[in-house]
């Protein structure tokens, strides 16, 4: 909010230079942005904190802050009253239908005014603060708002039907055209000011066109009211209309402010537009607001701030802020809070006042005295870090993607249980992602312009209806890399201390085939014991087509929370055998549909415990192979824990394995 330096100077004697004022306010009250020279004045862009809007969306309020920080003196405007003629009540009557929505409604009437342009000093001050000059009446209302924080409104007294002001909620179907010519349809959620028949203003937000002040206006009805912040906020949201007035009312205002503001405005109008101020004030104020009192323990002040402040200094700070108090007991005072300080509700609020005026910089930074309790390790984060490191070592790059997907992805992937946003930014970000895969594929699509081989992963949350949220680890590799990905998953799980890993062929259901995002013939479930911990497979060509990706893509999708439960740091070293091992190779021709694991199982069963390791080093399905066959080649490592195996012994076991394999009619060991 923009403030005028010269205006502040009116209220603070010996006000420091603009930069100094900015610095002081920033350190003790509110951050001051730009300080700018404008037409013989300076503007300060002050970021008044939202809880202080009630008293500091005004020059008085900011001046009072400066006074409290600098210990200078505050001087308010002097008031002289010329009251004559009729009473206000002769011109208009006020009825407030809802006392919660409108706790106070104050009216003052001026007669025989001469509407005209404002004097230069007035129009300039308004302009400096970003408001246009309209005429001397409207300008005074705005001026007093900027001065006191109380929004005011002026009606042409002759135009009110029935000489009545009624504060009520609008009726369905009522309409209003505002001062700037906008038309609004009203309903029962919007509070209005009405005359005997129609709404003449949207209460606390904007005046209506009909009773506006014009050149011919002679009788001015000034309104200075207090409205319920939530009522104004709802109305403002409903009509999508924010004004200088509505912003102030939304944050709440002191009901006791209406009277001083309206008197100030009447006096200024009389000075500038002549006329007479009618006697008396119409004041509907059924429940008066009195100052609150808060008990403040001075030891608590020191304990919360962590600094010893002399009692006198604390009291001086409170005094400088216009808080009255008396000692209720040793080291305890009863503080009376001025009603304009809506933000002060509890002792901690007062402690903040003392702390910030005293100066946070003056509070010495001190380490707390606390028990030396080692923090508990977060297992999930520990394993997350570990898993990410392993993937990084394997050459993968970590990506962070948005948690959103759009209609397009939902369609392509046929997601049924995505959670939809009520207020998405765009249709591309309309749902929460139920899988990390779509956005990873987008990454591949985008990066394939610059990179031929892509290995990326993401560890993040996925979301499913109705309210599920789950951590998932997903990676993709470009190319015909199924076995590379499988080996990677093995390595990852092993490093996380998980053994008993196996892969089960995933049987894609007939009804899934058309919509699956995976290749139905190339998909596996990753299992640990009997538990499924994820999937591994190739992305279906249909999906790749949609994403315009030319290479094949293998993905792995791991339920990370399950992994954390299975992971273990326990790791036992296996003694190195003192005895040499012997290696024999074995090649076997099998039908193409035969699984490697079937052959491995037979080798291990026949070989017994002297077979230390079986390593598949080649799968060949080339042209030279007989129709429908493939060649599997193994290194078999023989080793005993307690002796050196003799060549004869090794040959015997190896022959036994060969014989066992040859028992299968369709298998043929190649010699």
């Amino acid at each position, binding site marked *: 909010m923009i403030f005028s330096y010269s205006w502040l100077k009116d209220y603070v004697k010996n006000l420091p230079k603009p930069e100094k004022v900015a610095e002081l306010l920033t350190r003790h009250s509110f951050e001051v942005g730009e300080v700018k020279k404008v037409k013989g004045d300076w503007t300060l862009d002050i970021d008044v904190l939202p809880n202080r809007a009630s008293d500091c969306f005004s020059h008085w309020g900011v001046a009072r802050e400066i006074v409290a920080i600098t210990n200078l003196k505050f001087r308010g405007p002097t008031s002289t009253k010329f009251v004559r003629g009729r009473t206000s009540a002769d011109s208009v009557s006020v009825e407030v239908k809802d006392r919660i929505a409108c706790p106070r409604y104050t009216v003052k009437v001026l007669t025989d005014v001469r509407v005209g342009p404002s004097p230069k000093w007035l129009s300039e001050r308004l302009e400096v603060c970003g408001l246009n000059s309209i005429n001397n009446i409207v300008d005074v209302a705005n001026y007093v708002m900027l001065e006191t924080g109380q929004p005011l409104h002026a009606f042409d007294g002759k135009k009110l039907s029935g000489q009545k002001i009624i504060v009520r909620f609008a009726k369905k179907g009522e309409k209003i055209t505002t001062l700037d010519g906008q038309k609004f349809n009203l309903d029962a959620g919007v509070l209005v000011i009405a005359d005997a028949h129609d709404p003449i203003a949207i209460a606390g937000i904007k005046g209506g066109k009909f009773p506006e002040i014009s050149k011919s206006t002679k009788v001015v009805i000034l309104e200075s009211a207090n409205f319920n912040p939530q009522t104004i906020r709802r109305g403002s949201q409903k009509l999508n209309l924010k004004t200088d007035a509505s912003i102030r009312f939304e944050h709440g205002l002191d009901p006791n402010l209406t009277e001083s503001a309206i008197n100030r405005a009447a006096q200024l109008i009389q000075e500038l537009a002549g006329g007479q101020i009618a006697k008396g004030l119409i004041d509907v104020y059924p429940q008066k607001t009195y100052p609150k009192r808060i008990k403040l323990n001075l030891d608590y002040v020191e304990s*919360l701030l962590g*600094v010893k402040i002399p009692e006198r200094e604390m009291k001086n700070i409170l005094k400088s802020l216009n808080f009255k108090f008396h000692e209720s007991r040793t080291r305890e005072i009863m503080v009376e809070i001025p009603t304009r300080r809506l933000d002060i509700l509890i002792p901690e609020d007062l402690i903040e006042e003392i702390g910030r005026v005293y100066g946070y910089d003056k509070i010495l*930074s*001190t380490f707390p005295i606390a028990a*030396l309790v080692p923090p508990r390790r977060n297992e999930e984060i520990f394993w997350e870090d570990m898993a990410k490191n392993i993937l990084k070592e394997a050459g993968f*790059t970590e990506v962070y993607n948005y948690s959103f997907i759009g209609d397009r992805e939902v369609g392509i992937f046929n997601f049924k249980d995505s959670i*939809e946003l009520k207020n998405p930014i765009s249709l591309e970000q309309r749902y*929460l992602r139920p899988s990390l895969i779509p956005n990873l594929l987008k990454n591949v699509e985008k990066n394939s312009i610059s990179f031929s081989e892509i290995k990326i992963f993401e560890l993040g949350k996925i979301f499913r209806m109705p309210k599920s949220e789950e951590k998932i680890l997903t990676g993709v590799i470009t190319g015909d890399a199924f076995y590379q990905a499988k080996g990677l998953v093995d390595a990852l799980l092993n490093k996380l201390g998980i053994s008993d890993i196996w892969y089960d062929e995933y049987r894609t259901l007939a009804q899934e085939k058309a919509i699956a995002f995976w290749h139905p013939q190339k998909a596996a479930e990753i299992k640990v014991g009997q538990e499924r911990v994820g999937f591994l497979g190739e992305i279906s060509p249909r999906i790749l087509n949609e994403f315009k990706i030319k290479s094949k893509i293998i993905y792995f999708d791991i339920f990370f929370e399950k992994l954390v439960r299975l992971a273990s740091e326990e790791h036992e070293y296996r003694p190195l055998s003192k005895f040499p091992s012997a290696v024999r190779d074995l090649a076997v021709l099998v039908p193409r549909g035969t699984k490697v694991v079937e052959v491995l199982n037979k080798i291990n069963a026949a070989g017994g415990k002297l077979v230390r390791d079986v390593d598949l080093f080649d799968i060949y399905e080339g042209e030279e192979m007989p129709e429908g066959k493939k060649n599997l080649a193994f290194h078999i490592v023989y080793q005993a824990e307690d002796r050196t195996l003799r060549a004869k012994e090794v040959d015997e076991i190896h022959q036994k394995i060969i014989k066992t394999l040859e028992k299968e009619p369709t298998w043929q060991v190649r010699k």
Partner: protein
Amino acid sequence: MTLKTLKIEAEKAIIGAQDLKGLNDVYKKYLGKEGELTRILRSLEKLPKAKRVKVGKETNNLKNVLTIKFDQRTQVLKEKAQQEAEEKEWIDVSAPGKRPVLGHLHPLTQVRRKIEEIFQTMGFAVVEGPEMETEWYHFDALNIPKNHPARDLWDTFYLRNGLLLRAQTSPVQIRYMEKNNPPLRIIAPGRCFRHEATDASHEHTFHQIEGLVVGRDISLANLKVVLESFMKRFFGEGVILRWQPSYFPFVEPGLELLMRCSVCQGKGCSTCGNSGWLEVIPCGMVHPNVFKAAGYNPKFWQGFAFGMGLDRLAMMKYKINDIRLFCSGDLRFLNQF
């Protein structure tokens, strides 16, 4: 030929040999099986006994001397041969090396780990909370009542399932306090969402780290030292800091920690909005209503809370000028970390 002339001749030949092959010929000629010295020794038996002993001794002495000379020359020529061989080989050290294929961790992961490590050394535990939140944990429990303008400070995404996407990690404070007794020291990293248009410095998806310390007499002086220590560890001892009053509904008093802009050194630039300062850590003393909402008695407990934007800290640390890069998945960016 006398032994004397033989000695002179042999020594000359040894010195004269220019390569190992030539030296080998010299060896054969004098010391080999058919060499001069061997021949002399073989012919000794023909001599009278007295002479035999004398000549034998002298010949053996000469053999030893020549063997030593020969070994020395061999060493010299070997070194020479090796040098000549090496000189023929050469490597262009300016040609590019072959890099192993390394993976990369996201810069936000790296910054997050660094922050976690600093706070863990100060005894903070790391906890996490859900990204979909209820209005209660996200607003009400944090002293932000319904229809309060303070709710406007958080432009929130709402979901059809009745939950919302958290716009701050602060709800984790409540969730943790509900389940744990004070004293406590925690940080809570996580992803947050804000309903706003994106540009180089605004992103609807960002990452925060929340902090909370609760104890019998935790004070604002403690808050200051913990955050100042953090900033010095993270940005280096030279970081220039400033404290300012601020307002957040869930703390009272509320403060903001600012650092001197590292891009312009405080002169004012586009990064710091010409102010020379960057707001880095909003913080304050836990509001009694927050303690009440979490089931703590505010009479007995004091504490402080803070929050920091990971993305902003990473941007300052690595001088990244566009926040949208973090979620771009662009490998040209990610491979730099």
